């Protein structure tokens, strides 16, 4: 009796300790990245590694700015990511509203088309997509990354659900007041859509800021590289010569993603889970 009691009162502590170890393993590589980036390139091989650098230096950060044009990479990444996020919010907001609140012919088959394309992985269609962009003269341009990412099947689906969740009476009341379909959208429903649009925007940011496959294929000249592409090629060029310089670049590229993680964690979590549930 007594024994089993002890076992059960110990269990929560064991469980929490286990979780703490797992959390440390999860964050360990990130902590190592940050602490090593604060050491000099020469020191960065030293083992045992000092997790808390005794004399932090920004030398590696200066190094990464010398090696690659960080500003240009960051500008490219920001342009691509911001335009895609805004573009997706617009296209998904409009199309989602049409599917939720407007009546028109072929509504069902068109929505079915949108749903079906949610299942098609980009990797499978990349060769023809590349050829389509080539015929438009958009390979090796930032626009070639941006424009194909505007339509979003999942975002459209999410916004449709979002608009369906709003009370129908609002629109009907506005209609009785003499509002046309545009006014009903513009003045009644659109202002309520912000939280749904935030999910679409944050998801788009998270995906495209970190995107590697499409930039690798589309962008051949260095001036069009985005951050992940620039960092992978920097690592290839430097080999293992100056770890801390490459890691400084990784830390810099993480900053916006971490900011979004902190500020937009709720929409991000909702988006990621509903992206899973609705597939």
């Amino acid at each position, binding site marked *: 009796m007594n024994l089993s009691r002890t076992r059960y009162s110990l269990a929560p502590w064991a469980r929490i300790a286990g979780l703490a170890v797992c959390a440390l393993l999860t964050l360990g590589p990130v902590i190592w990245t940050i602490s090593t980036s604060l050491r000099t390139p020469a020191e960065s091989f030293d083992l045992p590694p000092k997790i808390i650098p005794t004399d932090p230096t920004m030398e590696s950060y200066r190094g990464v700015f010398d090696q690659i044009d960080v500003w240009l990479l960051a500008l490219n990444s920001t342009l691509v990511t911001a335009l895609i996020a805004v573009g997706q919010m617009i296209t998904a907001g*409009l199309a989602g509203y049409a599917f939720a609140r407007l009546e028109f012919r072929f509504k069902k088959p068109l929505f079915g088309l949108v749903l079906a394309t949610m299942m098609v992985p980009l990797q*499978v269609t990349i060769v*023809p997509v590349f050829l389509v962009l080539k015929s438009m003269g958009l390979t090796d341009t930032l626009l070639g990354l941006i424009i194909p990412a505007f*339509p979003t099947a999942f975002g459209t689906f999410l916004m449709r659900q979002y608009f369906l969740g709003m009370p129908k009476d609002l629109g009907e009341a506005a209609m009785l007041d003499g509002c046309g379909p545009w006014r009903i959208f513009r003045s009644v429903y659109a202002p309520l859509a912000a939280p749904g649009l935030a999910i679409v925007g944050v998801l788009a940011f*998270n995906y495209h800021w970190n995107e590697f*496959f499409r930039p690798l294929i589309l962008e051949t000249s260095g001036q069009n590289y985005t951050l992940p592409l620039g960092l992978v090629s920097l690592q290839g060029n430097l080999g293992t010569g100056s770890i801390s310089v490459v890691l400084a670049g990784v830390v810099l590229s993480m900053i916006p993603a971490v900011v979004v993680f902190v500020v937009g964690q709720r929409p991000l979590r909702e988006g990621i889970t509903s992206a899973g549930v609705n597939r």
Partner: protein
Amino acid sequence: MTNTQIPAVRLKQPAAPPAAPPRPSARDRGTRLLATLFLAPTIVGIVVFTVVPIAGSVVLSLFHWNVIDDPSFAGAANYGEVFGDSTVLVSFRNTLVFMVFAVALQLLIALALALAVNGRMPVWLRSVFRSAFFFPLVLSAASISVVMKYLFNQDFGMVNWLLGLVGIAPVPWLTSENAAMATVILVYVWQQFGFSFLLFVGGLNNIPKEIHEAASLDGATGLRKHLNITLPLLSPTLLVASVVGIINALQVFEQPYVLTNGGPGDATRTVVMVIYESAFEQLRFGEASAVGVLLFVLIMAVTALQFRLSRRFVHYQ
């Protein structure tokens, strides 16, 4: 209470013969125009960048084409080449091995952690754990693979140094055939388990507390309670997590590309790497498309099979 009832009844009666909208046809035309404008960007985009490319993949897979010369009709030759090409066959085998281990590991870790986090603890601590497990998801798979490549380096990597502390000889994480695949799986799972974890945490929150209480009253405890009660109730979430996990795992690219570039030999070359290499390095667009079509069919088949199996095992409340 009675006060609110009276106007409600009153409102309903004049609403019975609704005043017809002045000109219904004009309004309908307006609605249709608006719908067309609202849908155009999405539908045109989806047709140009998804529907046409799917058809294009199938058509291209029937041609030999290197972009420079004119395409020549090849019939099923590309598919014949694919099945005769040992690199392609190995890449399919690698991808399936990767998928099985990565998804199983990802689901197990995520489920264990979700159950543990769901137990009793201070609210702030729970949110710290939840944030920590979900954090790798917001990082770039490519950059994090660069980091991991250093950590798993045989000579100066932190992982081997730590293992050395407990007397384990240096492991050739990235340079021996078996270890390389295991490393790619570990790095992938490290980044991805947070996704299944979030799904499971959501699924566990949806299980009514009363069910657990009733089970405890009946004497079910610990592991038994989880096996007999939690898991069946969680099975819809398990299905979603495994379907999405499998679809994502079949498309793995960044980790093997950065960590091992498919090596040593072809040990970690995946299907998407073969698509990338044959199209954009060797300019064999026809063969690359054939591999793409096969991957697409594989993804569809796995998904269909999974839904069929699940009809037997998934319990909906």
